[in-house]
């Protein structure tokens, strides 16, 4: 089918672009490391799960999934053993790659949530923060930074919890009698954002030496990212994306308007709840580790819509991949300047002029 072909082509191309930008980004930094070395480090890091007939408990210990009783184990085998200088290996594998991969995951999450929100709200100005997710995360994070709190998962836990709490609150405010009108949701989102803005400002006033850390978090950053953060965000992002992708066709029908969608057999309110919930979770996951990074969720889906059209079956995956590429590049720019910048500044500084350009060319008018 034509659409499948187009989807595969676009996704394939964007995946290649993502791999290329990840590798290229890993070469850039205070120490320049050539691409072949980066490639070798990456290939070395690959471990392939293989079925292995084991005689008793596997020697690989923790890595083996215990199907031992059947005499079958799963072992992780690294197919490549390249020799790479240890310093390069550490720089690439422990310092640069976690940050780059996290940038990709965050961009992926924000852009897919943005595509869903714009379709859901049938509003080109919608982005993942519109229902208060970002403000909630910011309030949680700043509270954690400013006040001596002890919570599980620390800063990220507070941000994630704050994000979901704010989104849920907005949903509760906007819902009456089982119906959640989109316009009310939008306004409730704005109200909660404004209120949380006040709370955040107040907390910043109370902050002493932590002020700088709080402001830095608010600007959105990917500094000092770890594989742990990737490990926590990536599954959330992939799982949530899979659900959103399964609803791509419903999102298309929702574009016709809720009444039409209902008469075409979509359980509108339930679908809205699911989409809102999942988009909030995927956004919360990204914001919790990276702070408030603006514009990715707004402009990436927009640009992709211009390129591939409004059909969410192709728009959603391409937006997600393009978001990943965009944030990898933006973060690379952020960390290679004379002074390292929070990536949120870069995305907004690059994104806004580009968006204005699109506006002036009248290419951004509706969905």
């Amino acid at each position, binding site marked *: 089918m034509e659409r499948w072909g187009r989807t595969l082509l676009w996704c394939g191309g964007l995946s290649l672009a993502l791999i290329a930008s990840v590798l290229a980004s890993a070469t850039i930094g205070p120490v320049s490391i050539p691409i072949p070395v980066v490639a070798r480090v990456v290939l070395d890091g690959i471990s392939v799960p293989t079925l292995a007939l084991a005689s008793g408990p596997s020697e690989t210990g923790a890595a083996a999934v215990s199907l031992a009783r059947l005499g079958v184990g799963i072992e992780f085998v690294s197919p490549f053993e390249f020799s790479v200088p240890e310093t390069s290996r550490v720089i690439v594998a422990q310092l640069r790659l976690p940050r780059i991969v996290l940038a990709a995951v965050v961009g992926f999450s924000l852009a897919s949530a943005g595509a869903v929100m714009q379709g859901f709200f049938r509003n080109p100005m919608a982005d993942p923060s519109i229902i208060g997710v970002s403000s909630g995360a910011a309030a949680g994070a700043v509270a954690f930074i400013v006040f001596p709190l002890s919570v599980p998962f620390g800063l990220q836990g507070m941000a994630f919890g704050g994000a979901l709490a704010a989104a849920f609150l907005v949903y509760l405010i906007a819902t009456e009698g089982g119906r959640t009108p989109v316009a009310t949701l939008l306004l409730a989102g704005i109200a909660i954002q404004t209120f949380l803005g006040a709370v955040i400002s107040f907390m910043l006033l109370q902050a002493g030496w932590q002020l700088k850390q709080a402001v830095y978090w608010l600007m959105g950053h990917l500094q000092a990212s770890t594989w742990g953060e990737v490990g926590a965000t990536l599954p959330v992002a992939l799982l949530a994306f899979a659900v959103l992708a399964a609803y791509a066709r419903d999102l298309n*029908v929702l574009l016709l308007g809720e009444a039409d969608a209902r008469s*075409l057999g979509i359980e509108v309110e339930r679908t809205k709840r699911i989409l809102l919930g999942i988009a909030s979770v995927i956004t919360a996951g990204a914001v919790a580790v990276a702070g408030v990074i603006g514009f990715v969720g707004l402009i990436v889906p927009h640009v992709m819509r211009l390129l591939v059209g409004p059909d969410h079956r192709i728009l959603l995956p391409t937006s997600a991949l393009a978001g990943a590429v965009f944030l990898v590049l933006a973060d690379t720019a952020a960390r290679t300047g004379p002074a390292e910048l929070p990536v949120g500044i870069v995305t907004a500084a690059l994104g806004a002029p580009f968006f204005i350009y699109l506006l002036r060319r009248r290419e951004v008018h509706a969905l």
Partner: protein
Amino acid sequence: MIELDGVGVSLGGQSIVERVSFEVPEGTLVGLVGPNGAGKTTVVKTINGLLAPDDGEVRIDGDPVTGLSAREVSRRVATVPQDTSLGFDFPVREVVAMGRTPHRSRFERTSPVDREAVAEALERTRIAEFADRSIEAVSGGERQRVILARALCQRSSHLLLDEPTASLDIGHGVRILRLAREFVSEGKTALAAIHELDLAARFCEELVLLADGEVLATGPPEAVLTETDLEAAFGVDVAVTSHPVTGAVSATALPDRPSRSASVHVLGSGQEGAAAITRCWRAGFRTTAGTLPKGDVALARARALDIEAATTEPFAPISPAARQESARMIREADVTVLAEGREAYRELAAASERTVVFGENDVNEGGADDGPRAIGATAASGGTEGDATLDTPIENGEHECEGSERVQVGSDDTLVDAIERVLDGRDGSEN
């Protein structure tokens, strides 16, 4: 089969429709007519499950709609909504294919049945040639057909159309309703909310007249589109006639008219007579009309305006009874308008105290044939004379009948003036 049983819906605490009961049997297209705000759209939305009734219930093939899931409803009922504007540029084909949503599960790919349904819908609605264009790039009439194609694609046995012809030109409107007729000719069921009464009368077997949220009348168009009911529903004077071409019931809202105490009797058949009747009626005179042959346009006009008229057989001399009746009306009227210069009419008019001669008929030349004609023709025989009468609206009453004031009228607007003048005692003939 759609059944509404005592349905009441209120929105925001305000009752929109009440006690609405009617049914749409298989194989029929029922028109839901009524003024704006009567609750037509609400009824449609209650049938497709968008609104839940507060009282009563809606049943589709015997099952209450409220008990069905959105998907089950959408497999039984397809809806063409009132507002079909879409704010994004899907290709037409994709919009049509969305009609398959009720039949596809989330992970199912497009099946041959889906593809066949889409192709058939595109074909039927004749939009196949622009199936790959963006929905944004087609005209309003074409977009309506796209949405209808989407509904046909659902392959449901019931079709709801909410104002499918509003904002369409007559060509597109008629095309849409023909497609709806095709739909019901397969034994399916359709309900169309239409505010154009003539189209509804022409295409629907039955009508439901809704006013102020309640059913005022149901039945075949002739029974529903009566002046009394329409005037009650729409709050204006309505003329109901039979359409000269389609033969369907045709209703026209009439302008408000002032009320005058004077009465006028119009003598004259054909277009001239009809025009005179209309002008007198519109000016607010109590109007009667005389000796009109059956089947004549003037008689049809008189009937439509609820004007008393003396009738006679066509292609025959005026019957004595008709002559007598007309003469009585002339005696009772303050003014007689002679709209056709036929001998028989002139004889009748002679009995009148005040006569106004209307139209381009020369009173002297008329009356070559004595029998009234079924189809009126303007007797504008002499070009020069016709022009002269047009230029000088009020002419000398040269051919006065004994004891009666006469005024000749040429231009349309002055008929009423002339009647007024005659009534005032100024005959306009002072030289």
